[in-house]
Structure formats: structure tokens, C-alpha cells
């Protein structure tokens, strides 16, 4: 396989990330570098990262070519529905997808042309809709093949309901213009085929991996979670943005059922998002406020500590393109219950799977893990072993193989 140089367009990067996209980019790029690929990673102006294994280019250093706006206006027309636009919608990210973000996305695309002309590379790799326009600009000015990497879709975020037309149009346009589409799960691939009408032959499934060094995290002193555990409580953890997509309300319903039978269970809701208020209200209404702890957004080692201290990790997502947190928990040896409506459930055996709406079964499985020590211990050991086999190297290899196929043409 030829050693390639990849011009990669990203949007966020740890520690300045608000979700799985940044984490995935870190894992993937590091593994690709280890496979011998050279990665030039482009980030928009508000993210500053220093890395030793790849070149990071900040888009802010480049002039904006005002080419895009006209193109954008035309591209939106084929996709306008009778319902029209949804202009100001709150998404799970902590900023609004209002005119500001749209402006950022277009501006980013404008800078891409200049960046592409300056660098030498064989393929363009764009992560999620925010960067597709930039990828397209880079392809237009250099003729190199474009690969779009679908980490999430508008369908996942909205459950098929109120699509944001601007976002959906870009997703569709990006996938159509690309030479190859990388989906992070069969689940996502099926959504792409069904809701975006993309040719299945153009899509390659590359499952995410997990960083293989959970012990590299320093223990936090005076960790409040440790104190709670020491007082004899069992910790049931949920982690992720507090949005409809993540199914945290199902987590709370399950918590109500579980707490009836496991009185010393405490439920941790780690994360922040637009549903925070509503969820606190729900916990109160269910009568379990005393058992639920809202920790807010966790960073870095706090996250690993949470996994490690928890007795059980629950991911009740309504629609999860992958679910990196599941692998992270498994790597720490904490048993997982995961929604079947997730990409990660396709590739793991040693986790308990449940339909997100089946609160009773979710509670049934949770109680079993909390009560039957042999099950907890065994799942813990087996899932840790399984996570060890799921590093990013496989994903990197698959991507590079896909790239090589188009480069050779």
C-alpha cells in the first residue's frame, strides 16, 4: 500500500471538543500516522492544538476566497421542501446552529481553497457536515479525490423529525460530491442509503476504535465519586450530551425502576446540554432526585475516573451512529448496557443490549449486573479483553485502503 499524504478537515480536537467527533479524529489520525500516512489536519480558527505526530494547519491564517456563497445559494435550492427552512434551532452542541455557525462553515470552506493550493497531498478527508464544503472546495481546486467521513447525521440528531434544511443539504451534497463515503457503522450506512439516497457501493463502513491506554490516566485525588462508593453505594453512570438523541430520559425512568429494588444505587448523569433543566425536573417528578447526581460536563481524566468508579454504564441512545463511550467504559472494565439502536452494538459481544424504549428490560439487566456479582465480574473482565482488540489501527488501515483504491484510478 502506498504511503499517502492526507489533507484532513476537522472541526474540533481534544481537549477542545464537545463530543465524540474530536475524540475520533484524535484516535484515527494518530493510528494513521502510525501506519505511515502523513496527515495535514486543518482546524477552524478557534481551536489551537499542538501535536507531535501530524501537521496542524489553522484555517484562520489563510485568506478567504469569496467563491462559495453563490454556490451555496444554488445548492440549497434542490433540497428545499415545502416546509421551508428551520432557521434558529437549538442543537446538542453548546452553540446554536443559527446564522453564526452557517457563516463559520461557509467561511471555513472559503479558506479551504487557499490551504489546498499551498499543501501537497493525495486525498482529501472531511469529517462531518461542518467540513464537507471545505472538502469540496479543496477538491475543486486540486482535483484530488474527496472522502467524507460520516460520524453523525441530521437523522440521528433529530430522530427523523425536524431536519435542519441547511445541514441536511450540506450532508447530502457532500456525500454526493465525494469519491468515497466512510460510515462509522452499518447502522449509519443504512441511514445514509435510506435518507440520503447515496449509492451503497460508494459507502465503506469503518467502525471507530478506542484508545488503548486507560491506565495512562492519573487518578484524581479526593474524587467525590470515590467517597460516594466508599459509603456503600453502587454507581450507575450515564455519560453524554443531554439531548433527546442520548435518551437520558429513559435512563431516569430506568433509574426509578432500579432504585425500587436496589436501594443503595446512585445514578450519575454526566454531561450537559439543552435538556439539563427538563431532566432535573423529571428526576424530581419521578421522586428520585435524592438518587440522581448531575455532574455537568466532565473533562479528560474526570471522564476516565467516572468509568472506573462506576459499577455499571448505561447508554440508552435513541439513535447512536457509534457510541465511543461504550468502548471507553469497556476499556476500564465497567460493564455496559447499550441501546441496540447504536453502531457500536454491531461489533461487541460482551455487553448487554436492549431496545432504548424497553425501560423494563433495561432495568432488569441493570439490576442483574448490580445484584449478581459473578455476572458483573465476568462482564467486566470479558469486556476489557474485548476492548483491547478494538484499537484505532484497524480503522486507520481500512481508511487508507479505501483511499488507495481511488488514488490508483
Amino acid at each position, binding site marked *: 500500500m502506498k504511503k499517502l499524504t492526507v489533507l484532513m478537515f476537522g472541526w474540533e480536537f481534544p481537549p477542545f471538543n464537545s463530543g465524540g467527533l474530536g475524540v475520533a479524529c484524535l484516535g484515527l489520525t494518530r493510528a494513521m500516522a502510525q501506519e505511515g500516512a502523513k496527515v495535514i489536519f486543518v482546524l477552524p480558527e478557534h481551536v489551537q492544538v499542538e501535536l507531535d505526530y501530524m501537521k496542524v494547519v489553522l484555517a484562520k491564517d489563510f485568506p478567504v476566497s469569496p467563491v462559495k456563497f453563490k454556490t451555496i445559494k444554488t445548492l440549497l435550492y434542490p433540497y428545499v421542501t415545502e416546509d421551508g427552512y428551520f432557521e434558529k434551532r437549538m442543537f446538542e452542541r453548546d452553540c446554536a446552529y443559527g446564522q453564526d455557525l452557517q457563516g463559520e462553515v461557509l467561511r471555513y470552506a472559503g479558506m479551504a481553497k487557499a490551504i489546498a493550493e499551498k499543501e501537497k497531498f493525495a486525498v482529501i478527508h472531511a469529517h462531518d457536515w461542518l467540513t464537507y464544503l471545505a472538502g469540496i472546495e479543496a477538491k475543486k481546486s486540486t482535483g484530488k479525490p474527496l472522502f467524507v467521513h460520516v460520524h453523525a447525521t441530521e437523522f440521528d440528531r433529530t430522530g427523523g423529525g425536524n431536519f435542519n434544511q441547511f445541514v441536511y443539504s450540506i450532508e447530502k451534497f457532500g456525500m454526493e460530491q465525494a469519491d468515497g463515503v466512510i460510515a462509522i457503522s452499518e447502522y449509519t450506512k443504512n441511514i445514509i442509503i435510506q435518507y440520503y439516497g447515496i449509492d451503497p457501493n460508494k459507502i465503506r463502513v469503518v467502525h471507530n476504535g478506542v484508545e488503548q491506554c486507560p491506565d495512562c490516566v492519573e487518578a484524581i485525588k479526593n474524587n467525590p465519586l470515590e467517597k460516594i462508593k466508599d459509603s456503600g453505594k453502587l454507581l450507575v453512570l450515564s455519560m453524554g450530551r443531554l439531548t433527546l438523541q442520548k435518551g437520558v430520559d429513559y435512563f431516569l425512568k430506568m433509574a426509578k425502576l432500579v432504585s425500587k*429494588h436496589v436501594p443503595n444505587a446512585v445514578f450519575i448523569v454526566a454531561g450537559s446540554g439543552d435538556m439539563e433543566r427538563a431532566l432535573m425536573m423529571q428526576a424530581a417528578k419521578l421522586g428520585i432526585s435524592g438518587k440522581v447526581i448531575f455532574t455537568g460536563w466532565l473533562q479528560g481524566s474526570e471522564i476516565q475516573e467516572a468509568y472506573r468508579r462506576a459499577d455499571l454504564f448505561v447508554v440508552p441512545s435513541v439513535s447512536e451512529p457509534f457510541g465511543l463511550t461504550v468502548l471507553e467504559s469497556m476499556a476500564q472494565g465497567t460493564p455496559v448496557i447499550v441501546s441496540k439502536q447504536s453502531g457500536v452494538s454491531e461489533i461487541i459481544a*460482551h455487553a448487554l443490549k436492549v431496545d432504548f424504549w424497553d425501560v*423494563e*428490560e433495561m432495568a432488569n439487566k441493570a439490576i442483574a449486573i448490580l445484584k*449478581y456479582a*459473578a455476572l458483573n465480574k*465476568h462482564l467486566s473482565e470479558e469486556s476489557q479483553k474485548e476492548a483491547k482488540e478494538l484499537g484505532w489501527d484497524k480503522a486507520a488501515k481500512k481508511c487508507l485502503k479505501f483511499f488507495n483504491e481511488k488514488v490508483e484510478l
Partner: protein
Amino acid sequence: MASVCFYFQVHQPYRIKKYKFFNIGQDHNYFNDASDTSLNNARILDRVSIKSYLPTNAILLELLKKHPEFKLSFSLSGVFLDQIEKGFPEVLASFQRLVKTGRVEILSETYYHSLAFLYSKTEFKAQVLKHRRKVKKLFNVVPQVFRNTELIYNNDVAKMAEEMGFKGIITEGVDRILDWQSPNFLYSPQGTKKIKLLLKNYKLSDDIAFRFSEKSWSEHPLTSEKFSHWVTSHNGNGEVINLFMDYETFGEHQWEHTGIFDFLRSLPGEVLKHGQNDFVTPSEAVDRYPVRAELNIENFISWADEERDLSAWRSNPIQEDALNKIYSMEESVLRTKDSKIIEDWRKLQTSDHFYYMCIKWFADGDVHKYFNPYESPYDAFIAFMNVLQDLELRVENILRGSIAVNPILNNAKQII
């Protein structure tokens, strides 16, 4: 002479339904799944009876009438007999017709197809005796030859069988035990005096049971002619060819369209074409052939999986936990003297429940998955443990009740 000895295992467990934690204390019916899944015992019994038991029994009856030299044997688990008695009496009648020919032997086993030998010798004996009584009642015969659940065997099993009066015992002809010896002779288990050991010829048995329809197999398609030739070629190198297999091979594991029924229909004729061959029941084999050597088998063997040991049921902590838990309840369960509780406890001992919890190669999806009616081994474990909790509650309620009933017998305070 090569004597072909057919032995068919016929068994259906009482599968435990998806019993949730919330059912504990409320629902004391563990085996009455009524869904469309493979946990529905009645549905499975119907299906297997129609696809396998009834048509194959009909063919065997035909063959027995056509060939007076044709003979075979079954072991029918107690839980299987219970299910057909209540749920499909026609199947029971067809087995009774076969036994009436006088050339179909019934073997002995534990009533509940359990691993009791590994945990409680008294329970083991009780289950064997119960099975013996059932067989006498339904077929008017007394089994002379024993086979333990899934052919689990070692020297101690043979000793116990001899103590209980059996003249023969069967198990798997495992390579690592046999070394250079052949499964086509009779052996004497070490530590016993009279009982004789018959060993399954797994190569020839599996040719029918597993490889029959595998197109990639070099010998596919397997005709009865070809097979009979293999049998005959053992002349001089063996006395008994023990073909032991799951009865569901015919029609269920190997579907009708593979030609398995035609194969069976023509097999006895082909075998008997060669004058030196005949058929024997296990008892006849024991009576006719001498023991050729002593076999020392200390560690347990079985006919399950590639390992042919106990790992199908006891290779991970959750299986061990479940097995320890259920057998730890023996004393208190029997003390309740409540027939429904005892019966439920015994139905929970069936080896299949633990087979479903096996995690070997779970990620690769293998034969365990084919046989597993649950979505994962963990689901099997959860249902089982929840059920045990409920059983425990029932036991406690009865035992507390009896303390109140007999206040003179112990100084315990009246709780009720």
C-alpha cells in the same frame, strides 16, 4: 463381524422464559413462555415432532418390519417424556410401537438430563431411579445399560452405574483417551468388575450427524452404499461400530431436503448386504463381545463441542455461579417436601440451561449460538438467576410456615 449399534439421544429441556427481576415473588411459572421465540417449549416440541420425531419413527418402524435383523436404541430423557405425554401423545405412542417390536432398547439416564453426578450423588441416584420407574411405566421395560447426561463420563460414573446394577455404560470415544486404541471394542472401566464400556465412534457418527449435508466435505454426498462400505471395512479391526447421535439429526439438524431420510431408509439394507455385518442393541453388544482392555478415565469427558469435556457447561464464572447456586439449594428444597417446588428445582437442573450460558467463542458465533434461544449467554444467566431467587423465596415461605406449624420441634419464635 462388524455389529452396528445405533443409539439416539432424544431430549427437550423445559426452557426458562425471559424471567425478569420484577417477576420475582409474583410469577412462579418459569417454563411457560408463549411467544414466537425459541423459548416456547410447546411450539418447539410441535415443530420438532413434525419435522423429526414422527417421520423418523415411522421410517424406523418400517425398517424394523422389513429387516428382522435391524436393531437400535434410544435414551429418552424424563423431561422429554413428560412433555410428549402432556403435549404430543402421538409421539409417545410412536415410540411405544417401536419398543414393542422387541428390537428397540431404552437406555437409562438421569430423569432431568442433569449434571447432578458432578454435585450430588444422592440427587443423581434419585433421578436415575425416577427415570427407571418412568420407563417401566411407559414402555414396560427395565433399562440395563446406562448413559450419563451428554455422555459425561469418568471412572467414578462407571463405578456408580455398576453399583446401581447396570451391565453396560456408554460414552464418547475421545481421541486423547484412546490413544492408539479403537472405539470399536468393548472396554472395562478401571475400578469396576463386570460393567462393560461402549465407546462412540465419533468419526462415523459425525459423518451422519454433522457432515451429511456439508457440500464442502470431500465425501459429500454421503450415500448409504458408501457408508455401509466404511462400516464393512472395519471387519477384522473392530467388533462394534457405535453410532451415537442426537435424534434430531433426522429432519431437524439435517433437513429433509438433504436426503437424510432416504439415507436412513436405505442404510440397514446396505449394511446387511455384506454378510459379516449385523445390528445390535447396546445390551446385545455387552452380552456378545468380551472386554478387550481396561480403560482408565479419571478426568471427565463428554460428547460436547470440540473439547469433549465439561467446558460446554462449566467453563466460565457465570456457569459455575449458577451451578453452585442451584445445588446449594438441595437441602432446603427437599426439606420443603413440596412437590411443585422440588419439581421446579429439578427442571432447573437440566444441562441445557448452563449450555446456554457458555461464552466460549460467543463473539465468533458458533454452534452454541445456533442452539441458544436467548440473545446472549448473559441473558440466559440473568433469567436463570432471577428464577432461582423466586424459588428461594418460595422455599423460605414454606420453611418458615413449617416452623410455625411445629413449634414443639424447635425453639424458633413464631414468625407468623
